[in-house]
């Protein structure tokens, strides 16, 4: 089941929906039997049983919950739903049952916003700049694109790790509170970087640089795949301008870093105290889904990392055995057997390389993808938290409005005209805030639905493509293995 797609633009298709409203009962039946729904839409299904309950709650939110996707809040069709009884309100859920082709078209329209998505970023040529503890790695960031928003078709700039962190930090502070899933930046590593700074030119530091380079590349690609981020001036500046102001607040132990830690702690405490009255089953289900996904991804990531580790170990042990077999072959005084043992040793040497190559594939294809998704899921959780915060703010405004109204009522009897006027003004102010709070909440809920839809689509694409690539790497390994053993077999048979 794919992610949700956008509903058709309000218009004829929209009208068609309401036409079906008469058949209230059948709608319900349709909702409750998953088989009859096109595979693509699950959200409607999940809302099915909750329908009656949610409607009894007089929470305007629920209407949006029942929409499969972006039904515009301003769409005129919405109004009649608010005023009618239960049946018509069920209508939106009908949407998936009708014309799925219309939805697909709508989706394509949304994507074909002038340019097709054509951008490719690569991070390459890591170069150490400077010496000692102030040294850093500079990477070349090359953008190849035909999108009009860029000044050229091919751009190239040099960036350091803290630049990437700075970009992420700006994007996060700008978009996260609105419910956008901002792709997380690669992790810092004090140990890894120190080795590089100190100038250790061994395999572990080259591996570290390569791991980081690959992570930075994936980070940028994920960021530009997001239609909103792609248009952000910070991103454009990052990819285009030759000079970038140094992002100092990204350092772990800086003032800003510590402030971040304090904020994170405060958030955690808040999360525990806010008990959101979740009337939207869609969100509740999604949150549970993502909790499960997170748990399984972490488990899988751990197993794959273990596999990488054991394969590397296998490679080293094979190399060691190869040397040992060569020595044995040397001391064997039967000529033919001696030769065969040497051949065995040579073959095991080739196996060593094969195992190492496979371990890299295990890692860069599979393990790193899982690691990325574990971090992405944290960002997703963050977005749910933001919604909760927004809800909380709205609730607080409602509470405050209530209090102001009570205060005004009291003042009515106290006969203090100027204070009364002030009270009335305050009521007006808080009514405004309540409305804004409600709008914000609806907006963030809408954005999150869209974001999750996009996220799921990306996830499906990513995993499908990686799984295929990974299996192809396994195929290659087996083919090589066959080659090696086929070459060895006659040598073994030749022992006489």
């Amino acid at each position: 089941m794919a992610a949700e797609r956008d509903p058709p633009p309000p218009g004829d298709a929209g009208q068609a929906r309401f036409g079906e409203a008469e058949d209230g009962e059948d709608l319900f039946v349709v909702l409750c039997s998953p088989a009859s729904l096109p595979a693509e839409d699950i959200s409607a299904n999940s809302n099915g049983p909750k329908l009656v309950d949610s409607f009894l709650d007089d929470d305007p939110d629920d209407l949006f919950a029942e929409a499969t996707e972006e039904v515009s809040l301003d769409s005129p069709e919405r109004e009649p739903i608010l005023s009618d009884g239960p049946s018509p309100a069920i209508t939106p859920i009908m949407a998936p049952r009708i014309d799925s082709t219309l939805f697909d078209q709508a989706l394509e329209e949304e994507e074909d916003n002038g340019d097709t998505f054509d951008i490719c970023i690569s991070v390459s040529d890591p170069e150490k700049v400077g010496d000692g503890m102030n040294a850093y790695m500079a990477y070349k960031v090359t953008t190849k694109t035909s999108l009009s928003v860029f000044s050229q078709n091919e751009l190239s700039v040099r960036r350091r790790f803290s630049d990437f962190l700075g970009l992420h930090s700006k994007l996060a502070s700008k978009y996260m509170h609105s419910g956008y899933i901002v792709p997380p930046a690669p992790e810092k590593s004090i140990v890894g970087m120190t080795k590089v700074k100190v100038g250790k030119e061994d395999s572990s530091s080259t591996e570290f640089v390569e791991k980081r380079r690959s992570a930075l590349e994936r980070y940028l690609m994920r960021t530009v795949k997001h239609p909103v981020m792609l248009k952000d001036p910070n991103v454009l500046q990052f990819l285009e301008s030759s000079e970038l102001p140094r992002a100092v607040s990204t350092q772990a132990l800086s003032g800003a870093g510590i402030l971040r830690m304090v904020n994170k702690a405060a958030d955690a405490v808040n999360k525990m105290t806010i008990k959101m009255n979740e009337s939207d089953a869609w969100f509740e289900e999604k949150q549970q889904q993502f909790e499960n996904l997170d748990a399984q991804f972490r488990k899988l990531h751990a197993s794959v990392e273990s596999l990488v580790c054991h394969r590397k170990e296998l490679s080293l042990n094979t190399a060691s055995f190869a040397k040992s077999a060569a020595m044995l072959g040397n001391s064997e005084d039967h000529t033919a057997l001696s030769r065969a043992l040497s051949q065995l040793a040579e073959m095991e040497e080739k196996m060593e390389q094969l195992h190492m190559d496979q371990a890299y594939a295990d890692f860069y294809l599979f393990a790193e993808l899982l690691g990325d998704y574990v971090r992405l899921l944290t960002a997703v959780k963050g977005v749910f938290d933001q919604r909760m915060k927004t809800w909380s703010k709205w609730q607080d405004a409602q509470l405050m409005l209530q209090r102001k109204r009570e205060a005004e009522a009291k003042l009515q009897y106290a006969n203090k005209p100027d204070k009364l006027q002030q009270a009335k003004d305050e009521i007006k102010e808080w009514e405004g805030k309540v409305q804004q709070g409600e709008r914000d909440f609806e907006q963030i809920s809408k954005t999150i639905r869209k974001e999750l839809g996009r996220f799921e689509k990306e996830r499906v694409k990513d995993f499908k493509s990686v799984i295929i690539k990974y299996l192809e790497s396994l195929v290659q390994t087996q083919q090589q293995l066959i080659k090696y053993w086929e070459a060895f077999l006659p040598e073994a048979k030749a022992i006489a």
Partner: protein
Amino acid sequence: MMPRAVNVDLQTDGTLQVDISDALSERDKVKFTVHTKSTLPSFKQNEFSVVRQHEEFIWLHDSFVENEEYAGYIIPPAPPRPDFDASREKLQKLGEGEGSMTKEEFTKMKQELEAEYLAIFKKTVAMHEVFLCRVAAHPVLRKDLNFHVFLEYNQDLSVRGKNKKEKLEDFFKNVVKSADGVLVAGVKDVDDFFEHEKTFLLEYHNRVKDASAKSDRMIRSHKSAADDINRIASTLYTLGTQDSTDVCKFFLKVSELFEKTRKIEARVAADEDLKLADLLKYYLRESQAAKDLLYRRGRALVDYENANKALDKARAKNKDVLQAETTQQICCQKFEKISESAKQELIDFKTRRVAAFRKNLVELAELELKHAKGNLQLLQSCLGVLKGDT
């Protein structure tokens, strides 16, 4: 499994065939059913079985070693003690951790460990059998009285394990032996054949030891990787059943694939263990037995040379000459007898070794090819399905 020495020795003989027809694993001991088929007149029946334990095999082996008559032969190496400790420990740990995993995981792991236990069991049976077959194939040892008693006496041989005092005695004997070994090895042999063999065996033995250890490590890594794939398959299955998107089919298919490839990987490791690691371990023990033979010959040579010196002295002093002459003659005969049989034994050892390596390396290559091809086919078919779906 280890090749039966009889096949390699080309001395297949209807007159005496020995095998282990059954085995029973009890708490800390294994009971082997030794089955004999023989036309030799010295046995009361043509076909019979007895039950023996590991200690009784060791007793038989030691009786050969201690028998002066057999000094000129390579004594077939004793089978290693059955060791289920590691496997038992793992089974126990699994039992303790039962609560922390799903029922499927538990059942899977239990099956794995039971298979491992069974593999170790089969191995120990094979190693005990090889020992008996080597003895049965040896023209002289097969006639040994203790061997016949071992095969035929259907009561317990009451061979208790060595007590502390005896173990200590053994320890000192070995210390002396290795000191001697150094001495003897240092003396250059007049006979080119033996000189070559000595150099060869010393080096060969050390290198086989190293190769055996390294192959064990390599195989262990292989097994660990297979275990990881097992866990990955389980998690992918859970993901596949939980996932509501298109990719769930991918997860389920790949989970199924990995279940199968994991079994193949485990078999690859197991076959490497049997055909390569066990082969090296066996020849580690055999090359030690061959070294022991050379040592015994070396001792006999030293005794002979000492006897010569004593004779010269006696003749010079003209005292106890006859006694010295007799001693010298005995030593001479002993040395020559050992040398003669040792030469043949060492030649046979080479023949056996070459044949065993050939057989095992060919079988190993054939099995690896079979597994790789099987693996490849599974991977390609899964890829075909997945690619067709996108």
